[in-house]
Each structure stands twice: as structure tokens, then as C-alpha cells.
């Protein structure tokens, strides 16, 4: 199990990387942390002609906060996100979620941008950026595009990122004082990809939720922002509202069958997660108990 032969170029800057991508297009692959790409190369599931290693581009690294926006450089490693005080303060959902991403040795190499660009529908971070209403910054020789997270993911391992573009950073509005979040995934073993997962954020005023964003993952070919939230926001949630929301969720889900779960099981677990989430955000255990009864 050895990778096919490829050429390798270490980009010295974003400009350099974009030059290489412009020149080699579809024949090239961007090597960031490599934690998804390398297994694919070793298994010969992917055989690019050229790897453009962006690992040495320091300008792509780092976490900063300015004007109410949290910016995470594409090359920021999972471990750096996990340990960041800024993230814990301004996007605590990420702190919680990232602990579920694989294992320490993987988190020491895997990058935030790499995970988004890879767009595995079962991975945590794409759903998180949906829930956090993030903007994804991509650059090509022709300039920079700002893509709403909700538009970015287009299918299994597919995004709006063109072959000559580089994901450079993610911008997330900093959490408001009354923001709440929820993260849970059902995975067979610690660190495994989820069978079904949910990353959620919202605003809690008294006993009313607003701006509720439910980012589901492993429920289809891409992470999904549930629209069923309309049943849950703007007024105190009742058991019947939750049931309506679950029914609406069911209608918008299009899950796939795999070795871990049937379509029905995914729908079932997604409904469960909704109940758990709403109940946790509102600190209303009764809702969960009723929903699961």
C-alpha cells in the first residue's frame, strides 16, 4: 500500500500556491495537514500528478478576532483550535466539536481549512461552520471570494472550491452574550466518524430560542442546515412544537444507507438529536423525555 508517484512543490506563499494551482489545475492537489489526503494516496484512491504543499505558508495560520469577527486561518491545526482561548470564548461550539475529531496525533496535523475543503459529509467541522453561519474565504489568482458556509458544500467531498482556488480562512461572527450551542454525535467508538451528528447554535432569551441553526452531519451527501427550526423559535417550545419540528426535519432529510446505519436509523437518530438539542439548549429535560417516550 504505497502511494503512486507524484511530484511535489512546496509553496512559499499564497501567491506561489495560486500560481501552481493555476498552472496545474485538475492535476494538482493541495496538501494541507494531509490527514485525509494521505490515506487516500496510500490506498491509491487518489493519484494526483502534483501535490502543492501549503504547509509552510505562515500567513494561512492563526486565529484572530477583529470587529466582531473571528477569523481562523485555513492552516490552523485542530489542536490549535481545541486549545485556543479565543475560540473557547467566541465560538465554544468549535471547542466542543473538535474534541470529537479523530485522535490527538491526527489533530496535531489536521487543519481547519483542510477539513472543510475535504468536505466529508460525516465530519464535524463542516456542520459546525453551517451552524455558526461562517463565511469561507477562497482565493485564486483572480482574487478572493467570500462564500457562505451554507452554499459552500455541494456533495460528497465536493465544494464550490475550484481547482485553481485555495481556501484561505474562515470568518465566524463572534458569539453574542446570550448565545447557546449544542454538539452531539453518535459514533461507534471515540474519534470515529459519526453515524449522525448535530452542531447547533442559537440565541436564548428567557425561554425562547431565536436564530437557531441546526447543522446536521452524516445525514446525507453534505452537511445540512435544517429548516425545521421554524417550529422551535420565537416562542416557548412545547412538546407538540417539537414533534412538528421533528416531522418537518424528517421531510427534509435525505440520508443514505451504509454499514453503520439504515436510512430509517439515520432519520430516527436525527430526530432524537433534535429533541436532545432543544431540551439541552432550553434546559428543559421534560421535552426530551416526552419526545423519546
Amino acid at each position, binding site marked *: 500500500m504505497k502511494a503512486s508517484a507524484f511530484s511535489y512543490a512546496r509553496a512559499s506563499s499564497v501567491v506561489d500556491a495560486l500560481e501552481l494551482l493555476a498552472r496545474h489545475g485538475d492535476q494538482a492537489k493541495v496538501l494541507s495537514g494531509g490527514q485525509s489526503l494521505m490515506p487516500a494516496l496510500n490506498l491509491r484512491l487518489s493519484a494526483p500528478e502534483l501535490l502543492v504543499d501549503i504547509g509552510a505558508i505562515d500567513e494561512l495560520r492563526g486565529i484572530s478576532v477583529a470587529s466582531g469577527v473571528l477569523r481562523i486561518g485555513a492552516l490552523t491545526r485542530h489542536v490549535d483550535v481545541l486549545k485556543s482561548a479565543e475560540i473557547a470564548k467566541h465560538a465554544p461550539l468549535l471547542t466542543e466539536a473538535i474534541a470529537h475529531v479523530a485522535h490527538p496525533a491526527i489533530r496535531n496535523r489536521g487543519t481547519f481549512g483542510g477539513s472543510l475543503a475535504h468536505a466529508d459529509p460525516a465530519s464535524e467541522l463542516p456542520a459546525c461552520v453551517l451552524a455558526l453561519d461562517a463565511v469561507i474565504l477562497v482565493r485564486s489568482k483572480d482574487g478572493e471570494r467570500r462564500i457562505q458556509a451554507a452554499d459552500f458544500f455541494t456533495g460528497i467531498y465536493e465544494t464550490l472550491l475550484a481547482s485553481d482556488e485555495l481556501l484561505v480562512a474562515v470568518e465566524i461572527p463572534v458569539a453574542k452574550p446570550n448565545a447557546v450551542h449544542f454538539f452531539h454525535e*453518535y459514533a461507534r467508538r*471515540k474519534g470515529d466518524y459519526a453515524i449522525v451528528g448535530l452542531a447547533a447554535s442559537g440565541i436564548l432569551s428567557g425561554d425562547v430560542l431565536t436564530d437557531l441553526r441546526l447543522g446536521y452531519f452524516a445525514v446525507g451527501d453534505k452537511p445540512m442546515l435544517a429548516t425545521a427550526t421554524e417550529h422551535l423559535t420565537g416562542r416557548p417550545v412545547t412538546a407538540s412544537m417539537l414533534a412538528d419540528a421533528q416531522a418537518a426535519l424528517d421531510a427534509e432529510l435525505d440520508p443514505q444507507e451504509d*454499514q453503520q446505519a439504515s436510512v430509517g436509523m439515520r432519520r430516527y437518530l436525527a430526530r432524537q438529536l433534535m429533541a436532545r438539542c432543544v431540551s439541552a439548549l432550553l434546559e428543559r429535560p421534560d421535552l426530551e423525555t416526552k419526545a423519546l417516550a
Partner: protein
Amino acid sequence: MNDGSEKQPGLSVLDRPNSYIGKTVPRPNLDRLMQGRGQYVSDMVLPRMAHAVFLRSPYAHAKILNIDETAAKAMPGVIAVVTGAELAKVITPWVGVLSHLKGLKSAPQHAIAIDRACWQGEAVAAVIATSRALAEDAAEAVLVDYEELVPVTDMRTALDPDTPVIHADLGDNLAFERNLDAGAVDQAFKDSDEVVEAEFVFGRHTGVTLEPRAVLADWNSGEERLTVYLGTQAPHMVQNIAALHLGLDEAQVRVVCKDVGGSFGIKVHIYADEMATLALSKLLRRPIKFVADRVESFNTDIHARDHVCKARIGVSKDGTINAFEIDDVTGIGPYSMYPRTSAIEANQVVNLVGGPYTTQNYRARTRVVFQNKNVTCQYRGVGHPIACSITEGLVDLAAQRIGMDPIEIRRRNLIRDDAYPCGSPSGLKFEALSHHASLDKLVAMMNYDALRAEQAELRKQGIYRGIGIGSFIEVTNPSAAFYGVGGARISSQDGVAVRLDATGRVICQTSITEQGQGSESLTAQIVGSVLGVSMERVRVILGDTDNTPYGGGTWASRGAGIGGEAALQAAKVLRKNILDVAAAILQAKPGDLDIVDNAVVDADGGQQRIELHELARIVYFRPDTLPPGFQPELMATRHFVPREYPFAFTNGVQASLLEVDPQTGFIKLLRHWVVEDCGTIINPQLVDEQIRGGVVQGLGAALYEQCIYDERGQLTNANMADYLVPMSGEMPDIDVGHVVSPTLESELGAKGAGEAGTAAAAAVVSNAVNDALSPFNVTITEIPLTPRVVLAALGRI
């Protein structure tokens, strides 16, 4: 004056001052392994060595119409591309049958497929290149024309008339069938107050040794000798088979086994691709190395289990178990594995069901069928987890039906501890087992009553905990009854040679092998104890057919019980020989002397008379000073094989405490207990860790592990990410206790312990899950117990 033996009445050769027996001492080989200084076959490099990569069939069943290797041969670094037909000129095919498994049939299997590939992953050509990467590049350029054939994948329909026959010459897809009818089964069921039936389903799984299979074959045409470096559990078996099929004399083959990165039965076999590697070395006259990659491991390391078994139990209201009956089917792939065959597991299931219990009414049928999937064969606990899951599952179902506690029904039916020797309805002979003592100890260890109370309390809060119990018996120390009587040249005896070297140190050569169980340690412990020599002065050599006595190796929980006894007997002879020399030097009587702490001492009083290094100096360098005509023999060899009992049965009982989330189907293991009786315990820590490791492999089977094939015979999860094995995060702590009933067949008294953990782990998890789900009136008799299985059983999805 008393001689030594009279002074210590009742003590054996092992009950000596500073004996290591029964003591936890660290294994001598650990530091090497911990420092990264082990030497595994995958680490080895030889001059002129080339790498073999096998091109493998992408189809489960296909005719090979044409192989075009032209482009591949022209690629950089490529030394040769060899097809099955070319290789068949240097290696003959084999048929995996044993004569004592009456009716077992199989088809000739080639090292590399010639006309037809019979499972996805069967090698159809070999590419030999200067590096693995270059060989893989070239393998992609070998063009094979296949004609896909209809694959036989479902074992339930493999015998149907409209299912294609995989090997036309065999007439049908039935490899083996065994029927057993003991006692008066029909009457017993008629007399029962309740008869409970269930269908038990066992997923196919595999060993996942962390080091994949690896072989380095070195044909030296100057010596006309083949040296095989192989991570194997049975070097002499490999020597025999390699010679047989390569047309060599056994003396022309040396098998060397260095460090082995996990075996568990996976490496007790010799695989077609390994045989091909040996043949390639002979063909190309240079060292050839093959290391399976992980995908190849999943596709070609033997699989195991894969049984569907209809079973029933008859029980009276007072808890008396009246009868067991099973009807088992298992799919073994397209060939019976060579040389141990793929019928052994099913045969074991028939042998072992009902084994711990008194009832003599037992009917069984098993059918072993061919299919176009990877071969199955012996893997840790052969047949035990299946027999135990069926038996213990039925016992719990019966208990539940009559409203009896699972402990109580076992107390009423387990063979009494004073009933031995006795036999089972399937003809097994039991020398001495301790089911009741073990169960009593388990109940105390786990604080059973308190757990039941806690369980009831938590259930009121909607928390569903389950407690599962499972008694088991384990086959260990197999005699020739296992393979030898069936015509296989797989030795059931082991030999140990012990010698005192010129510096007073001890060198011990043993035919058992080490894959981490502690063979090296237990041998040194026994030899050191018997000789009165400290362990650090004992060096153990294993795993080399040129340099060890002939023997079976390490499998079927036989290393300690058989190899250990050979070591004991050899050390006894050497001890006597040393004392004879000492008596000659000291002009004393041998009976007045003893060896303690590396020196000959007065048996009476312990006063030191001569150090062993001084004795050795005299023997080797100044024999002229010894009495005329006296010839010292400072090397002794002894062999051992059990003769009275075909197998030394052990027994034990396990328990699992777990929690099931009925909302999600997830199972959380909380605690696991084992009480086990392996007779004399040489090193408690080694035994406990064998048990724990075995348990976790059983837990893997219970919850995670499964080779998932689709209807076309494609293995769909042949990678580490999709084939789930237990990781540390989900595994519980495991408490281990012991009862000791030594076998009287050997002076050592040791029975095996390597498979006890695996035997009952899945059974007790299943029982615990059913216990947890009892308020929902749900019974699951299928493993792995995935969330999907649990949710489906609960009717939630």
C-alpha cells in the same frame, strides 16, 4: 540424615527455594520490544532482496482468460511478473482435508490461481520488483481478462439445487457434515416443561494482527537450502509443508521465527501467497519478501466464525436442563484451508455445546459449506465463542422462561466439582473441572446481589443495565487427537533441550514459539526453578527449526502445558546430571546435594559447596581432574505430549455488566469479570493478561467486528477505518480470578489459558444485553450487537 526429598514431604520439583513458579516476574524480552529493538519479519532486509506484490482478483468468482504482463515487465525496477501457471512448475497444489474429519472434501488449491479466481483477493499473478512501491506500480499495469462467474455468497442457500457448484468435481458445495445424537433427545424435550428455541447468528470476523503477515524467503542455490523468515506459530509445520510442495527434503528448509506482531491463530496457517513467496525465491534464486498490506490482510488473512445456528433447549420448571439441540451452518470460503482444514471450528461447535452441563441428551448437526469469500479457519478460541454463546444464550432464555435467576439455573445444572472424571455427550473427557467453585468465586468478586439491587433501582430511573453470566470449557493441551490422527504432520509433542554452558549459565532451546504470550518467560521460570538457577542466567532460544527440538509450536493454548512440561522434565534431568558432576567433584553423594541460587549446596543446611560456573569450568576445561570413566552430560533433552486425555479441558465463568441506551441502541460496557481454572499457574500476570486480551477480542466480536460482504462477494469494509476493532476508550476494566485444578497428566499441572477470555466474552455480553432489554420483551441472538441491531430489535427503526 534425611535426603532432600524427605525433608520436604509433599513438595514437588517446583516447590523449591526461590522458585519462580506462581510468581509474577517480568518477561525477559520486554525491553527489546519497548525500545523499538525487536526484529519482526517486516523489519528484515537481506542482500539482493526483492519485494513481491500480488495482483489479486477483484471478483469473487471469475475465469482468468488472459494475463498480459508485457507493459508491467518493462516498468522500472521490475524483476519478474509470474503467473500461477509459471509458478506451478516449482510448487505443487494442496488439498486441505484431514482423514479423521470423515467426508471432509476440498479442491486442489494453487499458490497463485491458474484458471479461476475463487474469492476477491485471491492472487492471480505476482510482481517482483526492487521495492514494494515499484512492484505496486507495475501490478497496476498487469492486464487481466476476467470472465465474471456467478458467486456463491449466502451460506444459507449454498446447498440449494439452483445454486452453482463452486468446484464441479466435488459435486456440491458441502465440504463437511457432522451429525451427533446422544442420549434420548426427543424424549427429553417431550418431558420438558418448556422448550425455548432461537436462531443464533455470528458475524464473520478476522484477527487483525497489528503486524500484517510477513514472510522473507531466501533460497540459497549455493547451499540448495531455503531459509524462511516467517511470523509463524508453528515453524516445524511450515518446514514440512514448504519442503513437501517445493519438492525439497525437510532438511533443505529452515524456518526462523523472530518477533511476531500478533498471531491469535491467524499465523498458525501457511497461506497461498506465503507459499508463493517461497516458490518465487526458489524460482528467482534470491531473497523475496512479502508483507501483506492492511487491505490484503482483510481480504486474505483467514476469517472465522460466520455461523448461523438454530438451537433449542428443554428445561423443567425446577430448572433442570433436559436437552440441547443445534443445527449449525457455516460458510468457509472456496477451499478448506491447508493443512489444518476449515472444518475444525464447526466440529468444535458440535463438541462443545452444552459442555459445562450435566445433561447427556444432545443432538447436533453442522454443515460446512463452500462459498466465494475469503477462507475461514482457526482463530483464537476456535468454535468456543459460538458454542458458548449458543449454550449460555439458551440457558439464559430457559431461565427467563421459567423465572429463575441465571446464577441459580447454572448452579442446578453445571457438572458437580466432585463428579470427575466424567464425559460429555459428544465424547469429551473431563479430568477435573471446577464450575461451581468458579461460579461461587465470580458471584463474590462481582458482588452479584448488590449489582442486581442496583440494576433494579436504576431501572426505575429509566437506566437499563444488564448482567450477563456465562460458564465455559476450553480445549487446551491438544494431543495427537487434534491433527496427527488425521494425517497432518503437525506435531502435538514439544521438546526442550537445556544445557549448562561453560560460564555456568543455562541455555534452553524449546520448540514452542513466542508471539507475546510469554513462552520465553514461562520456559525460563520453569527451568530456573527446577535447576535452582536465577532467571537472568537462563537464555531461551525459540522459533528456529535448525536450532530447537522438533515440536508443535504455540497454538491451541498448548505452550505452557506441553512445552512447559518438556522444559520441566529436561531441567530435572540436567539437574540430576549437574548433581552427579558435583558429587564427583566434591566426593559427596548426589542425594546430599542441591542447587540453590546458582550454586551447589548441601541439601541439609544449605551450605554452599561449589558455584555452577566453577563446576562448569571444571567440566569443560579440566575434565582431567574428574574421576576416571566419569562423563559429565551438561545437556539434557526431553519431550512431552499428553497421552491419557486427548485434551486438557479447562473451565471458567465470565460476567459482564453493561448499560444499553434503548433510545440509541448504544451499549456501554461497564465492567467484566472472569474466573478461570487453568491448573498450575506459572506466572499469574501472564495468565491474567492472556485472559484480558482474549476477553477484548471476544468483546470485539460481540460489539464491533464483522467482515461485511455484499451479494457479489465483495468485502466492503477491508480497511481499519471501516472494520471496527476495540479501542481503549470503550473497553472496560476486567477483573480476573482463579481456581486451580492442576492436571495430573503432567508434573507441572498446567493447562492452557490463551483462549478462555475469548470463549465466553461475547456470550456474556449478549446475555447482559438481553438482560438489560428484558423490560422490553426483546431477545437478540445475533452478534455483533451494533446500535442498528439493537434499535431494530426494539422496533424503533
